[in-house]
């Protein structure tokens, strides 16, 4: 056993220092002095420490396919940002934690970001229930929380001043923007088929008045329980005079849904319009999906590379690693969640712009960051915003952007119409800027 330093000190205290001890002390002092330049360099490094962005990843649970692509997009965006000099001269790091697509774990992950990982902000949550479960903790922790969720929960006023959605549009603007195309191009009489829970209700509650306002009529609303695995008994409920079927089924049963709908209608079907959420990360050439040929889908951003795609869209796709079919460049069977994941890219660029506008230096500047983002308005299309030109509403913490309507043509989605952000706006439902921090 060796003596501890404290023991040695206590033994030496009663005697005068020897010459050897004095020399040792001098040598130690000289050594310490020699390290002074290193100390100053360390002090300099403190201010140049990387900015840490906590990424709540849906790595497991129902959102796993989204989580995988959200992470790839975020890593690609930060590689670009860092290559361009980082944020305020500091490099940016992504601190990833699996939230299990679970609201309880997501709240715990935010706590970990704020106090364990020393993250500057949190970012990236998609699923609505996870966002709603975690957002109260973000406010309590005073942690800026940038979600990429497309839920209406932000703009509805349900959340708080620390939660923003500046990089992806919300379902209310998406759905209402589809109504004029549906009624003017496809038909006036619409039957809705949607899952019998929150996601489906968002569509039901927003589309029905929008269709009426556009001069059409929702002739039937067919809600299908989430536990259903076969859908044949629901198709006879579709009124015979239906001109358009609007479907937003999601989950593993969606392939069965499309297949059975094809078997029910055969070659004489009404026009069909769906949200690509049904088939995100699903290969359109999957068996049973042939029936979708000639039908239409909403897309947040086109999955397939369009003929007229600008260079910045091509650069974005190359950086993220998706091919012309929207699948991974390293695995053609790994289809991306292209209609949503652009939101991560754009949100990270908005965070960069916000931090630079707020002259963000440390976590003390979190409030200034929120205020800087709230002050943003127009976001022009380009390398930072490849999905298109947008307008951010600082009062509602929600961005508005273009919506794409694509037609399945030869097994690929080809953009048939684009709705500009001006046509997706709706009156404010909240003013977060009047709330205290």
């Amino acid at each position: 056993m060796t003596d501890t330093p404290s023991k040695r000190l206590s033994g030496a205290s009663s005697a005068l220092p020897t010459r050897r001890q004095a020399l040792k002390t001098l040598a130690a002092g000289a050594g310490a002095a020699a390290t002074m330049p290193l100390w100053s360099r360390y002090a300099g490094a403190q201010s140049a420490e990387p900015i840490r962005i906590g990424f709540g990843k849906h790595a497991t649970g129902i959102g796993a396919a989204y989580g995988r692509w959200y992470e790839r997009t975020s890593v690609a965006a930060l590689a670009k940002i860092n290559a361009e000099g980082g944020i305020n001269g500091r490099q940016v790091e992504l601190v990833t934690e699996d939230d299990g697509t679970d609201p309880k774990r997501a709240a715990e992950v935010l706590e970990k970001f704020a106090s364990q990982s020393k993250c500057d902000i949190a970012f990236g949550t998609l699923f609505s229930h996870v966002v709603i479960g975690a957002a109260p903790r973000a406010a309590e922790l005073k942690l800026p929380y940038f979600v990429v969720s497309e839920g209406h929960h932000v703009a509805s006023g349900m959340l708080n001043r620390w939660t923003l959605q500046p990089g992806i549009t919300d379902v209310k603007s998406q759905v209402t923007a589809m109504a004029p195309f549906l009624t003017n191009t496809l038909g006036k009489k619409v039957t809705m088929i949607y899952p019998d829970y929150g996601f489906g209700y968002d569509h039901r509650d927003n589309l029905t008045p929008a269709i009426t306002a556009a001069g059409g009529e929702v002739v039937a609303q067919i809600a299908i329980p989430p536990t259903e695995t076969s859908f044949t008994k629901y198709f006879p409920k579709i009124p015979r005079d239906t001109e358009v079927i609007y479907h937003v089924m999601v989950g593993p049963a969606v392939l069965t849904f499309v297949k059975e709908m094809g078997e029910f209608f055969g070659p004489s079907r009404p026009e069909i319009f769906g949200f690509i959420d049904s088939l995100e990360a699903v290969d359109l050439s999957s068996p049973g999906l042939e029936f979708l040929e000639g039908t239409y889908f909403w897309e947040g951003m086109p999955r397939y590379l369009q003929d007229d795609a600008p260079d910045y869209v091509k650069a974005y796709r190359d950086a993220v690693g998706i091919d012309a079919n929207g699948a991974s460049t390293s695995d053609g069977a790994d289809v991306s969640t292209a209609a949503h994941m652009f939101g991560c890219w754009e949100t990270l660029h908005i965070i960069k712009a916000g931090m630079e506008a707020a002259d963000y230096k440390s976590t003390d500047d979190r409030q200034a960051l929120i205020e800087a983002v709230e002050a943003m308005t127009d976001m022009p299309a380009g390398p930072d915003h490849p999905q298109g030109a947008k307008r951010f509403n600082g009062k509602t913490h929600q961005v508005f952007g273009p919506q794409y309507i694509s037609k399945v043509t030869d097994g690929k989605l080809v953009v048939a119409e684009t709705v500009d952000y001006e046509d997706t706006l709706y009156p404010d439902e909240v003013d977060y800027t009047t709330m205290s921090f």
Partner: protein
Amino acid sequence: MRGKTWGAVVALHLGLVAVLFALNFVLPVYHQGVLARVMVLAVYAIGYNIAFGYTGLLSLGHAMFFGAGLYGAGLMGLHFGMSALPAWLVGTGAGALLALVVGALALRTAGVSFMIVTLMFAQAVYLTILYFGDITHGDDGFVVPGVSRTLAGIDLSQQHPRYLVGWVLFSAALLFSLWLVRAPFGRVLVAIRENEERARLLGYDTGRRKLGALVISGAISAASGAAYGLLFGYVGASFAGVQYSIFALLWVLLGGAGTVLGPFVGTLFMFYLIDLATGVTDAYMLIAGVVLVGLTLFAPQGIVGEVRRRLWRDLP
């Protein structure tokens, strides 16, 4: 149990309560928040333990009681602006009432049938939450309004009040559980678990006592759910899903079924197992799985159960 041993048992449990109180003032922020959450969820496990650990009622549907408390309290806040204490009481009462109704029907079965019937009831409650989405906000859930997160003017969303309220609830549940298992009613529950036929032959109305145990269990589980919603600010259907029924079973099995401290130890162990494993690898569930298999093989009675078997046979 001899008086001296009982004194040591009481000292152990009171000691844990005292240590948890002191930890509020010394733990780093993150771990303090974790412990607050663990204490509230451990109350749920304590409730489950009374049904499963002490009475032998293997339920796979306890999330419905947790959910009844969560929604009972949360909806009172959302729709009626009720403050924390009455909202918590409503939530706890909702869970007790649900347990009474479910128990009256489900306790006509036993063993595997009881397990399946409780699972089905819980699924029905879960789907009811989704079905009445206009009121419950369905699968998205809702944020509990600030007015319901205030107790006597104290903001429960703040770090220390939240911890202390969690501590009070946990301490009360723990000490109640300790008292219950030593009370005549609790001893009959253990007798039912060990041999219901024999308990019945001794003259006990086992049916009523099992129903009583389930109502107590449901009420405690609901008290936890109500507190969770009010303290952490979110009410959602996922908390009423089957995985939260499994969690309660898992926490109790890990900590030690039929032990008073087991539910807390199991909840704490499981939280930190996942939390630490996520820092090691993305495949953290693999680590958790291996550890759980190992624990099941080498400590089949759970952590506190093993302590009782090897070191302290009188530990309740």
